[in-house]
C-alpha cells in the first residue's frame, strides 16, 4: 500500500545484493570474469559398409587417455553385433562381430574427450626392444648415407630427429630420400620412413596417428607424427617443423603400421570422423582466494557443495532470471502465454535440446498431442481420464521421437525426454480447449506467444556470462527480486495495449 515501503524494500534488497557483490569482488577478489575453461570434444566415428551375408568382423582403433586429454565417456552403437574391446601393443581396439548379417551396415563410436588443464608429467616407460628393419641394395645405401648425414649435422638425439624430419619433408633435394619415399610421398609414408631409419640406427621410434581437435569438423583427416624414445619416455615430434612437442590440439589415437578400421566379410567400407567442441565452464575459485578461506562468504558458498549439487544450482539459479524475463514479457510487453511459468520450464528444457531442436521437438510433440486430443474428443471422455490419456500419449510420442531420431542418427532428438511432459500435457489440453472456444487463431497465437517467450527466456538464461555471474554471486538474485517487485507496481500500459487501444488514440471524428 505504502509507496515508500516498496521503495525502501527494493532499495535495501539492491543495496544488500550489491554490497555483498562488491565485498566479494573487492576484498575477497572473486573474479568477475570466468577463468578456468576446460574444453570438451565429442568425437564420432561412423563406419558404413555392405555386409555379404557372411560372418562380419570390424575392428576399430579408439583413442585412449593421454597426459593431455582424457576420455571421459564413450559409447558404441551397433545393433545386432557382438562387441569386445582389446588392448594390444599400446592401442585400444574394439571389435564388432556378427555371425550372419546382410545389407547396409552403420556402426558408431562416440567418445567424449576432455582437455586436462594442468598437464601431468608423463610416466616413465621401459626402453622397448628394437626389431631392426631390413634394407637391401640401393635402399641400404640410401639409409646409411642419410643416417650419416643427419648424424653429422646434429648434436644430440633431439636435433638429430629434427634434422631427419627436415630432410624427409623436402625429398626433392636428395635422391636417397626420394628413393626411400617412393613416388607418392604422403605424410604417413614420410613418417613411416623416418621411423624405419631411426630404428635402423638403433633408436626406438614409432609412427602414431591422431586428429586435430577443432571447433567443429566433419570428415576429419588423420595426422601422423613421430614418437621417439628418449631417456625414459616417448617424445613426440611435430611432423611439420621437426621440433619436439606437437601442437596442443593433437589427439593421439593409435600407433603402429595399421589402418584405423579393418573389415572382414564386407565391402564398400567408409569411415567418417567428426569432431565437435563444446565449451564447458568450470566455476572454480582457486589460487589467490584460498588464503581468505576463513571468510564466511567462502565457507558458506555454493562451491563447498558437491559437484552434482553445484550443477543443479547452476541451473536453478537461472530460473529467477527466466521468470524476471517472463514478468517483463507478460506485464510490460503483454505476451499471452499458456500458464504463468510454463515458458520458463520449456526454456529449461531448451538448455539440453538446444534452441532449434527444442522448438522443432516442442512443435512436433504439441502438434501430435493436439491431434490425439482432438481424436479423444470424439470418444467423449471425462476430464481426468482424458488428461491422463493425453499424458500417456505424450510420453509414448517422446519415446517414439527419441528412437526415431536416434535411428536416423540425430542425437539431439534424444533430448526430447527432458521436456516437462506434465506441462506439455496441460499445454495441449488448454490449447485444445482454447481452440474450440476461441478458434484456431487465438490458440495458435497463444501457443506462439508461449514459444516465443520460452525462446527469449532461454536466450537470456543461456548467456554464459550471466550464468557465471549468478552462480559465483548468487546475491545478485536479490537485485532481480527487487526488479521483479518493482515491476509488480508498474501500472502503465502494456505495449500490446497500445495497439489494442489505438482506435481510441485517434480521437473522435
Amino acid at each position, binding site marked *: 500500500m505504502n509507496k515508500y515501503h516498496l521503495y525502501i524494500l527494493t532499495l535495501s534488497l539492491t543495496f544488500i545484493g550489491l554490497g555483498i557483490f562488491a565485498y566479494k569482488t573487492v576484498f575477497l577478489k572473486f573474479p568477475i570474469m570466468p577463468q578456468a575453461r576446460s574444453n570438451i570434444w565429442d568425437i564420432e566415428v561412423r563406419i558404413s559398409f555392405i555386409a555379404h551375408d557372411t560372418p562380419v568382423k570390424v575392428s576399430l582403433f579408439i583413442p585412449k587417455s593421454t597426459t593431455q586429454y582424457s576420455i571421459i565417456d564413450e559409447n558404441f552403437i551397433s545393433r545386432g553385433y557382438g562387441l569386445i574391446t582389446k588392448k594390444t601393443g599400446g592401442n585400444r581396439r574394439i571389435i564388432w562381430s556378427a555371425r550372419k548379417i546382410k545389407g547396409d551396415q552403420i556402426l558408431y563410436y562416440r567418445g567424449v574427450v576432455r582437455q586436462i588443464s594442468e598437464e601431468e608429467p608423463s610416466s616413465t616407460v621401459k626402453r622397448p626392444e628394437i626389431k631392426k628393419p631390413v634394407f637391401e641394395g640401393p635402399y641400404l645405401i640410401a639409409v646409411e648415407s642419410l643416417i650419416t648425414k643427419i648424424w653429422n649435422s646434429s648434436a644430440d638425439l633431439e636435433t638429430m630427429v629434427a634434422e631427419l624430419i627436415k630432410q624427409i619433408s623436402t625429398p626433392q633435394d636428395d635422391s636417397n630420400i626420394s628413393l626411400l619415399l617412393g613416388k607418392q610421398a604422403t605424410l604417413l609414408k614420410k613418417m613411416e620412413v623416418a621411423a624405419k631409419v631411426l630404428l635402423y640406427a638403433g633408436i626406438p621410434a614409432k609412427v602414431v596417428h591422431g586428429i586435430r581437435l577443432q571447433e567443429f569438423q566433419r570428415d576429419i583427416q588423420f595426422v601422423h607424427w613421430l614418437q621417439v624414445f628418449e631417456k625414459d619416455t616417448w617424445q613426440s615430434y611435430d611432423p611439420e617443423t621437426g621440433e619436439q612437442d606437437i601442437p596442443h590440439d593433437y589427439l593421439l589415437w593409435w600407433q603402429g603400421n595399421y589402418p584405423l578400421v579393418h573389415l572382414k566379410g564386407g565391402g564398400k567400407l567408409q569411415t567418417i570422423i567428426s569432431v565437435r567442441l563444446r565449451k564447458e565452464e568450470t566455476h572454480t575459485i582457486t589460487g589467490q582466494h584460498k588464503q581468505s578461506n576463513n571468510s564466511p562468504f567462502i565457507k558458506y558458498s555454493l562451491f563447498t557443495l558437491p559437484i552434482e549439487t553445484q550443477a543443479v544450482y547452476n541451473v536453478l539459479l537461472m530460473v529467477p532470471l527466466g521468470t524476471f524475463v517472463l514478468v517483463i514479457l507478460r*506485464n510490460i510487453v*503483454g505476451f499471452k502465454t499458456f500458464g504463468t511459468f510454463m515458458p520458463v520450464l520449456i526454456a529449461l528444457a531448451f538448455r539440453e535440446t538446444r534452441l532449434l531442436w527444442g522448438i522443432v521437438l516442442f512443435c512436433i510433440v504439441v502438434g501430435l498431442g493436439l491431434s490425439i486430443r482432438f481424436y479423444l474428443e470424439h470418444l*467423449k471422455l*471425462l*476430464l*481426468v481420464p482424458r488428461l491422463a490419456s493425453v499424458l500417456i500419449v505424450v510420453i509414448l510420442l517422446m519415446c517414439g521421437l527419441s528412437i526415431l531420431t536416434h535411428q536416423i542418427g540425430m542425437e539431439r532428438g534424444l533430448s526430447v525426454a527432458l521436456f516437462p511432459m506434465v506441462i506439455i500435457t496441460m499445454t495441449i489440453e488448454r490449447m485444445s*480447449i482454447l481452440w474450440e*472456444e*476461441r478458434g484456431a487463431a*487465438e490458440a495458435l497465437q497463444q501457443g506462439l506467444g508461449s514459444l516465443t517467450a520460452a525462446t527469449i527466456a532461454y536466450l537470456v538464461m543461456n548467456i554464459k556470462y550471466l550464468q557465471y555471474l549468478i552462480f559465483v554471486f548468487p546475491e545478485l538474485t536479490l537485485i532481480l527480486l527487487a526488479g521483479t517487485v518493482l515491476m509488480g*507496481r*508498474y*501500472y*502503465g*500500459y*502494456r505495449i500490446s*495495449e*497500445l*495497439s*489494442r*487501444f*489505438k*482506435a*481510441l*488514440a485517434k*480521437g*473522435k471524428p
Partner: protein
Amino acid sequence: MIVRKLSNIGVLGINRRNALYTLQYNPRKLYPLVDDKLLTKQLALKAGIAVPKLYGMAEIQRQIKDLNSLLKPYKDFVVKPAHGHGGVGIMVIKEQTRNMYRQVNDLLITHEELKHHFSNILTGMYSIGGSPDKALIEYRVQFDPVFNGISYLGVPDIRIIVFLGIPVMSMVRLPTRLSEGKANLHQGAIGVGIDISKGTTLTGVQGNDIIYEHPDTGNPVSGVLIPGWEDLLKTSARCYELTGLGYQGVDIVLDKDLGPLILEINARPGLNIQIANRAGLMPRMDLIENHYKKLTNVDERVAFARNNFGA
C-alpha cells in the same frame, strides 16, 4: 506519443485495473459469490433482483441419467456451467423434438450429445482451474425486440461497469454470425457503447476496431434508445450491496415480458468497453473515488452517474 494520448483520454490498462481496482476493491473472499452463478442467482433472488428462473441442475454424473424427465416440461432452455467464464460451455436450446434438441443456431444435437455436454460441465471442463462443477438449466430469455435490427441470433446483453455502487460505463453486446449467437466480445460479438445519462447507443467495437454498422444486418448501431434505462441502472447499482465487490461488471438481459434480468456478475470486467464508448474509464473512476462517500442510496448514485457520465 500514443502512450500520452491514451493517458490523456484516461484509458485504463490491464496493469492499472488489476492494481488499483480489482486488487484494491475486490476482496478475494467475495469472488466465489460471482464465480458461482448459482450463488449469484440465490443472492439476487434474496435481494429481490430478477434473474432467469432456474429450472433445475445436475451436480453429480448420476443425475444426467434422469435428464430426460428433468427437461421434458420445457420447450426451450439454456444449459450453463455454474463456474463458467467468458461465456464458455453455454448451450441454448430453442426447441425439443422427440429425441433431438434444436440449438439456437439451428444445429440439432442428440440426447447423447447433450448428456455428454452435461458431463463435460460436471467434470470441470469449463470451470476455472478445471475443478468439478454444476450444470444449471434455466429459463431461456425471450429478449426484448429493441435490438432486433442490430443483432444476429442469440441474446444481446447489457454490460454495466459498476464502481463502488455507481454505474460508470456501459455497453450492449450484440451477437453476430461470427460469435454464433454468443454475446461475448472475444467470441466475435460486437460491443456498442451506451450513453449512461440518456440510455441511447453510441458506436461499436468489434475486435479492437470501431464500427458503425452491425456486420450482419448492416443497420447502424447508434441511436437506439434502451427502454427502462433508469431501472437498468438501478438494478446494476444494487449489485454493489449484493456482492460487495467495488469494481464489477453486471450483465443484464432485457426480457420482453419480465424486464431486466441479471445474467451474471463479473469481478474482472474487460476493458474493451472503453473502445465501444470511445472514452477512458480513468476520469470517471477518479470522480467516483472523490464523491462516492457523499452518496447514500441507490437513487442518488444513479443520479450521480446520469449527471456526470453522459457521452
